[in-house]
């Protein structure tokens, strides 16, 4: 009986620590990612807007003759496929 209660307390404690750890990880991640987002992505975004570079086409362009763009995907040398880009 006593053993059981001890065990319960112990696992409860362990789970508590684990949950606490998870929460901390999420917190740190969020803080770091927020920093990266507002500094890294934010600055890039300002530069992109200043240089009027459009990264995504968000609007229709009724006068354009076509929306097809060249892809030209064909067989490439073997080395190219080792690359992740």
């Amino acid at each position, binding site marked *: 009986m006593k053993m059981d209660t001890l065990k319960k307390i112990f696992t409860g404690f362990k789970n508590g620590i684990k949950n606490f750890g998870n929460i901390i990880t999420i917190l740190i*991640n969020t803080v770091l990612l927020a920093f990266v987002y507002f500094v890294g*992505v934010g600055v890039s975004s300002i530069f992109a807007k200043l240089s009027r570079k459009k990264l995504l086409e968000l609007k229709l362009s009724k006068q354009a003759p076509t929306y097809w763009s060249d892809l030209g995907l064909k067989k490439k040398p073997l080395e190219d496929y080792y690359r992740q880009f």
Partner: protein
Amino acid sequence: MYILGISCFYHDSSAALLKDGTIVAAAEEERFTRKKHDTSFPINAVKYCLQSQNITIKDISYIGFYEKPFLKFERVLSQHIELFPYSFKTFVSSMPSWINEKLRVPKIIKKKLSYTGDVLFIEHHLAHAASSFLVSPFKKAAILTTDGVGEWTTTSYGLGEGTEIHLMKEIRFPSSLGLLYSTITAYLGFTVNNSEYKVMGLSPYGTMDREKNPYYQKLTKIIDVKDDGSYRFDMDYFTYHYADRMPSKKLCRLLDGPIRNPESEITQRHKDIAAALQMLLEDTLTKILNHVYEVTRCPNLVIAGGVALNCVYNGKILSKTKFKEVWIQPNASDGGTSIGAASYIYHTILGNPRNYQQKTAYLGPEFTDDEISYFLNKNKIKYTEFRDEKDLIAKTARLIFENNVVGWFQGRMEWGPRALGARSILSNPCNLNMQEILNLKVKHRECYDDKTQILTKNGWKLFKDLTKNEAVATLNPETNELVYQQIEQKTEYKYSGKMVYFKNKRINLLVTPEHNIWAKKITNHSDSIYKNQFEFEKAINLVSRENVQIKAIKRWKGQEKKYFLLPRINRKKYSHLWQLHKIRMDIWLEFLGYYISEGCFCYDKGHHNIYVAQSLKSKHYEKIKKCLNKIYHWGYNSGSFKLSNKQLFEYLKQFGKAKDKFIPQELLGVSERQLKILFEALMRGDGTYRSKQYKYTTVSKKLADNVQELGLKLGYSVTTSKEVSNNPNHNDVYYVRLNKGSKTSYIRKNQSSLIYYRGKVYCVTVPKYNLLCVKRDEKIVFSGNSFRPFAPVVCEDDASKYFECDTPIPEATDFMLMVYPVKEKWRAKIPAVTHVDGSGRLQTVRRFQNKLYHDVIKEFGKLSGIPILINTSFNIRGEPIVCTPYDAYKCMMGTGIDYLAIGKFLVKREDNQNDLWDSEIYAKD
């Protein structure tokens, strides 16, 4: 040479193994992990592929990955930069998975598989194109790929010839037909990446006339399609490029309303939107295909990508375009790209000639009769053995003909999302009721235990006491209104095994594991698309998770009644009495409220006395006095009003003593305004009002029931507790608590559990919004169920007799990728598989593909005159299709499948009422 293809971390992860250009094994990870649409690294699928060939990872020459991760990451970053700062939330939720896995693919492959060889990365749409073209019957073919999004591409076309593929043009993210379909799927209240087929299935119910359907014109505002089929979106209508896949407010305005609450009533507007979307998709695809034909001038077409699963359109391709033949990869969405990546390496990159055509989808695990009998014996499962194949075919066909639902587990598991006769559930399409039987028996085992009560027009009832025509209370989730609906069908069956038990102060519910709970999750899961919506969630998935449940309803539309007719008494004997007859209902309800709470009757020497207790000092004294004035003359004596009237006495007598009190059911049907009068009068009596909560105390069980119903109808959230009296001479006391504050209640992690149950379970179906109002141990909740359509299978040589299909029938029909009209004269004969527009999503089967399956269908034809079966996937709803004998047996025992034809054995459900959910004893071998 062995080449392994892998697809993962996005939709359905999968693995495929190529041996000298032949696909020898392929499977999706979900079948092994039993997690639907599992996106994790397909370690189990890879293991299976290797085992099937008795090889190890060292024998693999190349691994092909289905996309270029860095290119995709570039696109994702571009989205964040372009849409800064709106994309913050998705940035935080999605970046960890990029950092941990998506950008570390070579490392993960090396680590998980101990693989040291070469890993090649194939562009996503190229992998799609290869998955279709390189295993197609064509030497040369035009290629179209359309999906949600790959790296940047969302639609591409090109030409395949021999082993070469040339993708010429593309449409780039964010414009994407796949994502448009998903957005409208979300708008219509279905789950994205899962229920797109439901939108397709809904479309024929809408107006399929471009002029008359108002939403067709509206949708053309958000997309500009050129004559060459190229298209672009006005992204103001979408949010998927910076948030989750929800429609934007502008889209909601365009479509005249908010996002549909899942499982709320599907109105004509929703059907019209689905129809408009389908028409828009078809028009765009037709334009694209005509353009592709002009460019390639090739009569053959292969298509791939998620949009290729739109079988309604697939069935129209050959009649609407100039293409003469079409082939589609059975696993056309992302799962199939593992085949594409591997084939592209072998044929295109390494230049090996093509020597293989994919003629079947049977590429998954298979189990020998020895393995199956070992499993059956070990678990003491009762079964019989078929004498030979002929016996198997004859007996199975007869069982189906006799309206049994048969689980069919034969040979290698299917590749792709459809069950095609290896892991299928077969049944009789000629039976008018089969659709309902299947829905109830197989797909919707959503039942309550025998202590659960359901609110009916006649008050609370145990399920077992429900009559056939009973009207039960349901919740319209759109308006939060209580609506009575007549039940369509009631089922009950014996169950023994695990049930899910939710228990806390406000909720007490014991349901089967597949039961749908109307719930809202609170825990933030980054992969969850709907965080703030109520939706149906399987009970088993809610165990040990935090969530909320809906509780209260908003409005009750009853009938305003002007008068209450008090029954007259025997005129002869009491002719001298002036009889009360028509009493204003408002007055009567108020009076009854006081009487039920505070009143009693007493016959005293010829006097028929009625008392309503209320002290002079009470703040309600004046109110009660005023009310009684309008009823009858009264006197006041020692803390009680006294009325002497035989007629009133006779009527009120029925309410008996305190513990027998109740509210007549017909009075609970009056309007909300009038119910409120009754409610307030009751509360002035035995109620208290403190901190925004009413508490009503009574010793009558029946009255507690009535007050609950009354409260629900007035929009209160109701909970009841019972104080059991230790003294047998005293009654139990019920406390009904009602408040308007919280409409929902929480279940915490430790308040749900799996418990063992043996006994009868019950459920009912109603025509719409299957949200039933049930209670157990006086705790009231709403919970419910929902439905889906079925598909026919027919032998290829019989298909054109029953269906209006293209000739020759495209091979893609073998993979259930085409929808064709059922011929007019047969529609009434096979109603369970005929869609509202007269079409059917059929599977054709050729004998060389699956001999047993083919022959069972033919044999059934001999018995019934129609060689067609209903083929539905062998799974419990919400779970992946079964893979192993264990999965199959578990599925059979957890549903109403009557027989299981597994290998050369036949298992009858009734012979095996074991404790199924104690699954440890059936652990996998």
